[in-house]
């Protein structure tokens, strides 16, 4: 089976938006890895399915988001307009709820809860530090189950580090409003925001001719530290043992990666120089991270990715699109039309970045379709309206064909209170991970196929 990749005219695309990325290495992208040829012939499903989760903070301007019509004949609303080219590969999902993000007895903290409940369907435990607890997130369920098929079980990326200082949202540790991926109920996974480091994670091993030797040294170090740590075990209190568990589990993870690297065929590395800096322009940063996600999927380095476009509650200024106010401040629009218009501008900006990613994926031929056909890209926010801080009827999109498992090009309206975790369960099902329940899920989401 022959697979061909079409070189991607990125400059052309970017020029249209008045942005030019100085990233020659992405331009001459050839096939990185003819995985289809190398995959065992006996395996019927040659093309893997991928999943990605993109998050935008502070809710969206729902009046300009939700299509008026249901089913196939829906029209793209003003905010969704940039998705015109990929409309046929898009599902707009209305009516989903993140119940874990709601206040109940915990009071304020909707932003912190929104992000941390989004992929977990769990209720984040309110604490500024002691006993941080949430649930395992859908991407990490997938990473745990299918991560052994690729070099990296999953990739967590974003553009903003955890908050720089202080209590982030009403008594919730900053970890909640900056972390979407949870490896376990007590282990948040920090996101990588530096393109250089993402690139190195994806491809560094391929660059390094002395990798074998280095891995051997590393193995001997990993063996040593595990033995060395044993002597601590009976002399630590339980909270400390939990920290030690985190340590052991991380060590184990690295060992597995070294083992996998030995077994899996080598990843072809893009020839051009890797990125060096975090782009100063936010849009370039987002697109560079999107490019890296595309590369990771294309080279099959990983099949699972989470991408936080901005931390929840972000008060970033969008002066570069003539919205100098802070995003969070604006989201408390109080019904003011001027502010809502500005919010729409921000929402539109984020959707344009999604469009960029989806179009990129859709330009890459793979087997009988495109990379987008073999992926499921979820996009949305854990907040409906930033002013009301409510968590039902969330703005959610699902793009991609999921290897023929999704019937796209529709607007689906679900009964209110349908848990968004039902969507995650259905996505897991499509990467052949069957799970009874994720967080507050009540079953698979119907009608996707």
């Amino acid at each position, binding site marked *: 089976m022959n697979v061909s990749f079409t070189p991607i005219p990125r400059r052309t695309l970017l020029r249209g938006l008045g942005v030019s990325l100085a990233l020659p290495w992405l331009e001459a992208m050839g096939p990185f890895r003819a995985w289809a040829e190398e995959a065992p012939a006996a395996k019927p499903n040659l093309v893997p399915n991928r999943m990605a989760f993109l998050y935008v903070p502070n809710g969206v301007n729902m009046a300009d988001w939700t299509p008026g019509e249901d089913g196939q004949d829906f029209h793209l609303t003003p905010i969704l307009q940039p998705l015109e080219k990929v409309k046929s590969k898009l599902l707009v999902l209305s009516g989903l709820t993140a119940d874990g993000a709601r206040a109940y007895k915990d009071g304020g903290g909707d932003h912190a809860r929104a992000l941390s409940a989004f992929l977990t369907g769990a209720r984040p435990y309110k604490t500024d530090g002691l006993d941080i607890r949430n649930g395992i997130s859908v991407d990490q369920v997938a990473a745990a189950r299918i991560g052994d098929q690729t070099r990296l079980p999953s990739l967590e990326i974003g553009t903003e580090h955890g908050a720089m200082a202080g209590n*982030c949202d009403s008594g919730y540790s900053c970890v909640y409003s900056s972390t979407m991926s949870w490896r376990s109920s007590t282990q948040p996974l920090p996101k990588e925001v530096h393109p250089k480091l993402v690139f190195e994670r994806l491809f560094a091993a391929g660059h390094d001719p002395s990798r074998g030797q280095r891995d051997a040294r590393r193995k001997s170090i990993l063996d*040593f*530290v595990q033995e060395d740590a044993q*002597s601590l075990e009976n002399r630590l209190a339980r909270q400390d043992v939990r920290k030690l568990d985190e340590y052991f589990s991380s060590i184990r993870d690295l060992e597995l990666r070294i083992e996998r690297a030995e077994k899996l065929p080598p990843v072809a590395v893009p020839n051009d120089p890797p990125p060096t800096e975090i782009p100063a322009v936010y849009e370039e940063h987002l697109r560079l991270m999107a490019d890296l996600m595309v590369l990771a999927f294309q080279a099959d380095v990983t099949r699972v990715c989470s991408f936080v476009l901005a931390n929840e509650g972000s008060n970033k200024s969008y002066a570069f699109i003539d919205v100098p106010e802070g995003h969070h401040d604006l989201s408390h629009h109080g019904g003011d039309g*001027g502010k809502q218009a500005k919010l729409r501008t921000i929402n539109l900006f984020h959707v344009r970045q999604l469009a960029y990613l989806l179009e990129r994926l859709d330009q890459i031929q793979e087997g009988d379709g495109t990379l987008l056909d073999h992926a499921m890209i979820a996009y949305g926010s854990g907040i409906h309206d930033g002013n009301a801080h409510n968590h039902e009827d969330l703005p959610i999109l699902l793009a991609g064909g999921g290897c023929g498992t999704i019937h796209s090009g529709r607007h689906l309206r679900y009964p209110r209170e349908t848990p968004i975790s039902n969507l995650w369960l259905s996505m897991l099902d499509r990467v052949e991970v069957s799970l009874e329940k994720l967080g507050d899920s009540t079953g698979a989401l119907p009608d996707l196929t």
Partner: protein
Amino acid sequence: MGFSWPTCFDRILRSIRVLIEAVLVTALQFAAVLLAPLDAPLASAEETIAPAAAEIQFLKEFCFQCHAGDEPQAEISLEILAQADSPQKNRSLWTRVQNVVARGEMPPADEPQPSASEAESFIESVRRTREASDRNAKPDPGRVTMRRLNRAEYRNTIRDLVGIDFDPTEDFPSDDIGYGFDNIGDVLTLAPVLMERYLDAAEKIMSRAILPEPPPVPKRHLDAQYTEPASGEVASKWIENGFRRLESDTTDPLGLGPLHTPYKWEADGAYTFRTRLYGVAPEGQEVHVAILLHGPGLSDPSPESELATVAGNILRPARLLKTVVIRGRTPESTDEIEVSIPPAVDRQRVLVGLVRPSEGQGPVKIYVRHMALEGPLDTRPPSQRVLLAVTPGTTTEQQTREVLARFLRRAYRRPVEEGELQRLIALASRAQGAGEKWEGSIQLAMQAALCSPKFLFRVETDEQPENPAARLVDPLQLASRLSYFLWSSMPDDQLLDLAAQGKLHERLDEQVLRMLADPRSDALVENFAFQWLQIKRLESFVPDAQRFPQFDPPLRAAMLRETELFFASILREDRSVLDLLRADYTFLNQRLAQHYGIPSSEGQPITGEEFRRVSLAGNSLRGGLLTQASILAVTSNPTRTSPVKRGRWVLEQILGAPPPPPPPNVPELSEEPDAVTAASLRERMEIHRRNPACASCHTKMDAIGFALENYDAVGAYREQDGEFAIDARGEFPDGTTFTGAAELRQILLGREEDFLRALTEKLLIYALGRGLEYYDRPTIDRIVSKAKIEEAKFSVLVREIVRSDPFLQRRGTPAEANQGARGAE
């Protein structure tokens, strides 16, 4: 100003503080409840504080109708609160009651309502009971979860352990923050991506620190024709067949010598100098040559009497290294002279001179072919020389043991256990067995130690991890608690030695002062002060470029630097921490001075990038933290000031009374369309406050924030905001009014105790690495009262924290209680 604090503002402040404390308490409530039976034998020592009769009366009147009996509403029964020991036993339930009453959520609107004053006095009474109960709580040092080194600590520890100067943490993910700080044990997790970075970092660090194959020794070769003294005449008059000639009987300085040339030197390096030459002299007469070293600041110069033996004009000061007899007499039979040059400060040139023939002897000549310098001879990095230093004459096995034992003691910050040392030696031996050089095997072993949890975590092992009784931490653990508190780094040898000798506890005060005086305590500025003041966020603060065109990275850097230098001055000069609010000086460079409109200091214009200390006149618009641009900017929005954020910042960071979060579904600032265009920010906020749900907190946040309205979103002084004149008046709910930053400062200084308490709490969280609990209240009380006695000096706060029980002590966690706490929500 005539106003009375104990009235409304005061009350609200206090009740808010209680709310926040109560929230903290909630998290631990389960642990506390579950611990209770274990504490039972000791609990009798604890005097029971009962709820006041009025509190019970309030519950009966407004709560029990629904929340009592067999089937209480929402399955919440409040009857247990009427019991005498309920303030201790039911802390979290009391908290919830307090919260919902304070927010007006309970009783529900369709039930009989308490009057505002009834509700307030209920809350105030509960607060007082709570305080009394907390003060009376059984002493408990609390428990810190094993702390992973955060980025700053890792960086500093590597600096002090390995002695290399680069930042190995650049690629680490940022550390999460809890209770306002990034050194909280519970919050510092260890994700696989970080472990991967630790492996990378250890590799990078040790590959810089130890070079198994040191680079070749640098060599420099200079043909004699290029030596000095130089002139156009040298080639024609003094060069023969590529040799440069010196003569004892010429008067031409070019021919008299000595020859010399400059080199670049490494101060601590040893070098070897070589020169090749032959001499010519009357039959039977010897030729002597002198090799000298010159540098303007050279130590140990030779006396004039010695230098005078050399022909020509010698650069001084100079040291005569060696005088040699030259045997060679022809270009074919030259001598090579070799001279060792030991490490010396300020070496510059090497000189080759002719020694004057003695009285009565004939003239002599020398012919020099070249000069050459090799060195530094030891090209191993300094870190390698220190890390791999060994006792001469010992076997390789002994040296391996010596080197690794010394390293482990410092890396693990305690004496080495034989088992772990054996393991590390085995690792090194295996590497040697596989063909690795000795240096390479040690490099690998040290790399491995840097990946061990014993290095990466501040492990406080405990032989009785489940014993809940309080006891002193062992002296070595105390050494680390001290060094990471004050230096964000590992203990130095003095601390480790004192600890090992068991003398650290008795010499605590002296060590605290020594450590504060050490430059390493700069870590307190960057890691504690920056986080306390929340100005790290300035790094990502981007104000709207159209409104604030003057803001750029140099100004941002200057803002941070001002606060950094200012806080450092309080620390270094051991001032009263109240000076943080009231100081009549600050630190400015030209950029910031312009920004502030302070062009000169004591008649001298403030110019250049360098910061200097600047006295502020009594009527200055600046003075103390509140008017520093760093703080004014991080409490602003990108397009405008935020009196709310500034007010909240003052309440939380300065007064320790953070306001509760806004109730849900309330816009942050409701802006009716006509108001947006027609009203000032103040007027719009006043409209906002008409909403009673907002009013109770906003009245005081806004009042404080408005007093700072003369400073715009980047901290520049202004009297107009757009077309509106600034009105920097603030009014508290009790009618107290004040105008501008200066009067606000006076009010805050009047709240000395609140400020000291707030700062103590923050510093204690930072020192302990955990959030504070109800049982920490007596500790805080004690620290604050000691500080007040001694002028609230910074070192006193630090010393009292170090002397406090939670800092000196530890306790274990009973297994079952911990499980219970985990399962609880």
